[in-house]
Structure formats: structure tokens, C-alpha cells
């Protein structure tokens, strides 16, 4: 494997490591009792990372796959509330949320796999059938986890976590909380995507907007309609442990960038882009476009769910209002700003969005300016569309994230072969 380590990969890894170490040092070294990066800036960096991950997910869905989606904040909210609930209950000595989410997800994925194997044996299965079977799988999976797994595993887990040192147990729970939120987002996006991705891109956008609104309304009523009194509905969920630290943030972002790059620069990734380029043509070179769209949508939503978990455990407070549909335009603006179809651009724009607009403007401009922010954003966007519609960085990528062009293949045999053809071909 090591002989494949290219220069650009090495630079990227060194750069990432340097960034990690520098920020970590700045977070720990204290001058006159406060770290160099104080809590305010720390919050902005973590927030920037979370919004960047959400936007990367959206870039996969919209920028690379061409499906206009406003549902990112819905999945962000699902991830945030799910992981927050897991750790909230764990801190209070109850592992049931952890068991339901993780166990239920595993069961559901197994059942869904069974469903797809089962349905493959039939000819001409329509979308609604697939949808209903998968919903049944999810209901059964999570129902089994809640009904059977919880009573059995809850005391066992408590014993195991009790035996581990507090720090380790906490890290394990946090890891599972993040994974759980992300996977649950993925499962819900899969169920939602089956019927809705069949719609054309614009209709899909409207449907995902509806999804965000539904999630927001559900979150407003978590203590009345849904059986989660600890989420406290529209009053906002408090008492979430503040566990997000820089390593968690950094490695989540690193992982997301890496997964996205590896996915896109593969055959599957090319089919995702092909669907954006020309859906009909992609289908008629033998690509299962429904699968390709679902894949991009689910992976994008998993990213959003992961970001939600990170944000929830940094802020330690969740409110449904921060996930309303107006907010769901934020990642859209970031993606368009950074450049559709550019990972580098999204990372850049995501951090710039938070650090410049939420941080610098608030700190250094005269008081009262923050009320003008929502005049400035749209103006900047309009100027952007007029002057540089392809986004700040267009399709630019740093070398590591760029698709490597294979060398030309010039062989003697094919050359002679080609010469013979050259005269006859158009």
C-alpha cells in the first residue's frame, strides 16, 4: 500500500496533522488563564466543522448527483436529537436509547437486506411495494430492539460501562451516539428517498422542504405527540453532556472528506456524476439511476446526522427553531457559494460562513450590525451569482482531492490498428 502513497496524499496528510496539532495546542495553551482560542472561537470552529459536514453531504446530493435537496437540516436535526438522547439518558444511568438506536439500526439493516434479496426474485416490483416492505422492516427492527433487546441488554450494558474507566466508557458511548445518529438519519433518508427520488429534481426539492418542516413540527411536539419528555418539545432540550472536543470534530471532518473523495473517484462515484450530467443517457448506458440517487442521498444524510451529533454535544442545548426550514437554506448557500461539485470549496465556504459572518462581523463591526446580516447575505449571494455563478472556487480541488488523470495509453499494436481505422472513421 505504501508504494502507492503519492506526493499529494502525503502533503494532505501532513497538512491535516499539522492543522490538528496546531488547533489542539491553541486550545490547551493558556495565556493569562484563557486558552489562545477561547471558548467563543472554539464554538465557532466546531460549529463551522459541523455545518461543513452538513454542506459536504448536500454537495454530494446536489452538487455531484444533481438532486436539489432542502432536507439536510431535517437529517441534521435527527442526528442531533438522536445522539443527544443517547448520551442524555446514559448520563442518567439509562442505556435504553443507545440500545434501541444501535440495536434497532442493525436489525433494520439486516431486515432491509433480506427485503431487497426477497424482492429481487419478483419481476416488475413497483416503488410503493419496495417502500412499504422497507418501512415494515424498520418498524419491526426498531420495535424488536425496544421490546426485546432493551430489557435484556440494559442491565448488562450498565455493568459493562460501570466496569470501564469513566473516560473510556464516555468515549465509547459518545462514539456510538454519533454513529447512531448518523445511521438513523441514513435509514430515514433511505425510506424517504425510495418514493421521493423518483420525482424530478425540482419536485424532489419541494418534497425535501416538506420533510424538513415535518421534522421541525415533530421536534416541537416531542413531549406531547412523541414519547420523549426529556426532549422538552418547543422549550428546547437541555442537559446534554458537552462532550465534543477537537479530536472528535477533526476526525469526523477528516473522515467525511476522505470517504467522499474515495467514493467520488471510483466507478460508483462516476455513475453519481453521470446521473447529474444526463439522467436518461446514464440509464441508457446501463446504470441503475435509482440506486445511484439513493446512494448519494443516504450518504449525504448520514453526514448530516453525524454533524448533528457533533453540534448537539458542543452546544449542549437543542431547540427545534434552529432546525426550521429557513435554516435549511444555509447549507444550500454554502454549497453554491463554495462551488457545486467542489469538496475544497465547500470546506472553505463552510468555515468562512461561520467564522466570518457569525464571528468576525459580530465582533468587529459596530453594534447593531448583526441585525443587518440577513440583508448582507442575500446581497453577497446576488453579487456572487452575477459575477461568479460557478461559486467561489468553481470546480477547483486541492491536488489530493482531484481525480487523477491516468496516463495516455499508446501501444504499438493499437497504434497500427488505429491508423487503419483513422482513415475510415468520421
Amino acid at each position, binding site marked *: 500500500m505504501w508504494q502507492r502513497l503519492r506526493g499529494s496524499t502525503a502533503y494532505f496528510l501532513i497538512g491535516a496533522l499539522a492543522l490538528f496539532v496546531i488547533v489542539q495546542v491553541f486550545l490547551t495553551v493558556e495565556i493569562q488563564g484563557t486558552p489562545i482560542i477561547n471558548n467563543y472561537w472554539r464554538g465557532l470552529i466546531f460549529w463551522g466543522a459541523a455545518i461543513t459536514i452538513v454542506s459536504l453531504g448536500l454537495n454530494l446530493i446536489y452538487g455531484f448527483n444533481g438532486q436539489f435537496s432542502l432536507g439536510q437540516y431535517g437529517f441534521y436535526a435527527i442526528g442531533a436529537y438522536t445522539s443527544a438522547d443517547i448520551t442524555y439518558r446514559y448520563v442518567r444511568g439509562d442505556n435504553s436509547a443507545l440500545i434501541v438506536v444501535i440495536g434497532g439500526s442493525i436489525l433494520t439493516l439486516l431486515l432491509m437486506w433480506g427485503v431487497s434479496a426477497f424482492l429481487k426474485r419478483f419481476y416488475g416490483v413497483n416503488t410503493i411495494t419496495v417502500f412499504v416492505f422497507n418501512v415494515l422492516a424498520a418498524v419491526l427492527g426498531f420495535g424488536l430492539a425496544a421490546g426485546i433487546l432493551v430489557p435484556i441488554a440494559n442491565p448488562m450494558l450498565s455493568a459493562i460501562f460501570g466496569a470501564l474507566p469513566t473516560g473510556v466508557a464516555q468515549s465509547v458511548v459518545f462514539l456510538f451516539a454519533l454513529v447512531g445518529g448518523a445511521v438513523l438519519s441514513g435509514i430515514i433518508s433511505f425510506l424517504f428517498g425510495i418514493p421521493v427520488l423518483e420525482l424530478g429534481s425540482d419536485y424532489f426539492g419541494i418534497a425535501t422542504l416538506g420533510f424538513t418542516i415535518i421534522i421541525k413540527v415533530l421536534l416541537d411536539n416531542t413531549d406531547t405527540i412523541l414519547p420523549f419528555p426529556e426532549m422538552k418539545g418547543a422549550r428546547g432540550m437541555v442537559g446534554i453532556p458537552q462532550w465534543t472536543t477537537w479530536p472528535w470534530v477533526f476526525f469526523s471532518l477528516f473522515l467525511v472528506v476522505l470517504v467522499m473523495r474515495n467514493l467520488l*473517484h*471510483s466507478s460508483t462515484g*462516476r*455513475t453519481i456524476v453521470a446521473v447529474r450530467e444526463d439522467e*436518461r443517457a446514464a440509464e441508457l448506458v446501463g446504470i441503475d439511476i435509482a440506486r445511484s440517487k439513493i446512494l448519494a442521498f443516504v450518504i449525504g444524510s448520514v453526514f448530516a446526522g453525524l454533524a448533528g451529533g457533533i453540534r448537539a454535544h458542543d452546544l449542549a442545548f437543542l431547540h427545534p427553531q434552529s432546525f426550521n426550514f429557513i435554516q435549511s437554506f444555509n447549507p444550500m448557500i454554502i454549497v453554491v457559494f463554495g462551488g457545486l461539485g467542489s469538496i475544497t470549496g465547500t470546506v472553505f465556504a463552510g468555515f468562512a460562513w461561520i467564522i466570518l459572518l457569525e464571528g468576525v462581523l459580530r465582533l468587529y463591526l459596530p453594534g447593531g450590525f448583526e441585525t443587518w446580516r440577513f440583508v448582507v447575505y442575500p446581497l453577497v449571494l446576488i453579487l456572487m451569482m452575477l459575477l461568479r455563478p460557478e461559486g467561489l472556487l468553481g470546480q477547483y480541488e486541492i491536488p489530493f482531492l482531484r481525480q487523477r488523470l*491516468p496516463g*495516455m495509453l499508446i501501444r504499438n499494436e493499437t497504434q497500427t490498428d488505429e491508423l487503419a481505422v483513422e482513415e475510415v472513421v*468520421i
Partner: protein
Amino acid sequence: MTKGRPEDLGPEVEQRPVVLTISGLTHFFESLRAVYDFSVTIKQGELVGLIGPNGAGKTTVFNLITGVYHATEGGIQYNGAHLVGLPSYEIIQMGIARTFQNIRLFSNLTVLDNVRIAYHPHAGYGLVDSTLRLRRFYDKEEDMTERAQEFLAIFGLAERQDDIAGSLPYGLQRRLEIARALATQPRLLLLDEPAAGMNPQEIDQLMDLIHFIRDRFDLTILLVEHRMRLVMNICEWITVMDFGEIIARGTPDVVRNDPSVIEAYLGRQAIIQ
């Protein structure tokens, strides 16, 4: 006419296996009858033309074969397998490829990627391999790239592999589209007006190309075309459609002199004169 092919093609051709059978194909758009009782039987290695005036339903037939539309009535069989109701990508993976009347390349992607995308069903590695960058990813990806490059070399596009497909001149885009279709490894190729927008000299070269790919890739070809010169020169036999129905069938010479064909193309007046 009933068995979907002319009768005087000679014993050698008749012995070959049947590739495509379409029988009684009928398709309605709402209440508009686009195709009515269309039948055709094509044997291995044949080069068959499908002609007719504008709006005769030729492209609809192609769309029905490739699963873009699902036929209201009638059957399509490819090597004995029924196609009606299957999704397009499965039909393509069974070995049917097509091109489009107006070129539909992935125009923001490179020439090489256009061909590599068509190789996807044969990629030989999955999501896990590519996400974790396992050895299998590198091996198969290299393998696939090499095959695609060899393929481009055959079509004289090797030096253009890194160019953006949309930036190629028109003739090369056509050629790339045919190359991409062939990269799906078909046995039956459907060409939808390949000569559209070409000058006479380019048409000559296109005819050579079509003959070349048929021999090289051992293909059966069904071709929709407007340009009589191309059709009359290269097709072994021709089916003529008008208003969704078959009005004539036969070798180019037979079709050329068929009064109903002349009427469909030139109007009744032409015959009377």
C-alpha cells in the same frame, strides 16, 4: 410481412439465430397512437434500417425497445428474453445499446470518463473496496481504465482522453457516443439518426465506421435514419413506417420503388406524375 422480415434474403441469412423479435407492438401516448402493430424479426449480424417521414414513430420504437417507454401492447424479445416492463438499465445490461438522435454525452466529463461510466456494470469492485481503497479497487480500476483507453484508441480518440466531452467537435462527439454505446458490450446496437447534421463526406466516413464496428464487435445493428443515401447504401433490408404503421418492407431496391413509400415521402402527386 407477417413474420416481420422480407422473404427473399437468401438461405444463408435465414439459418442464423434470431436476435430481436418484435411482434404486434402498439403504443399510445394518451389517445395518440404512436406505434401500431409493429413487427420485425432481426437475425444475427444483420444491418437493418428503419425509415419513415418525421413523426412516423421510429424513435418511439427505439424507446420501447430500450424500456424508456413501456409498450401498451405487444411483445419484444431479445435472444428469447422478454423486455417489456424491464427497467432500461437491465435491458442495456442484457446487451442492447443505443445512441441518441441529439447527442447525449456526459458533456462536462472527460472523454475517458464517458467510456468508463459505460463500463460500470462490469467494474468488478464495490463501494467497500473504493471507500477503503482496498487492493481490489486499484487492480480493477486500473484494468477498467486500460480497457477504456484501448477502446478509445480503436476509435482514434486516444489522444483526446482528457478532453471535456462537450468541447469535442461534432463529428468526434458522434464517434464518442458510438464508442460509449459499444463500451456497454452490446450484441445489438440501435443507432438513432447517426447521420443527423452531417455533410456528405462525413456520411461516407460514417458508413465505413458502421461497417467497421459491425465486423469488429460482431454486432447486429438496427438503424433509424432520414438520410436515404446512408440507408440505401448500407442496410441489408429496410422497414418503412408512416403514422406508426409499417407500410413497406424489403431490400433497398424494393423499397425505393415501392409506390406507398414514394407517397409517404413525396405525396400522392409524385406517383401520378
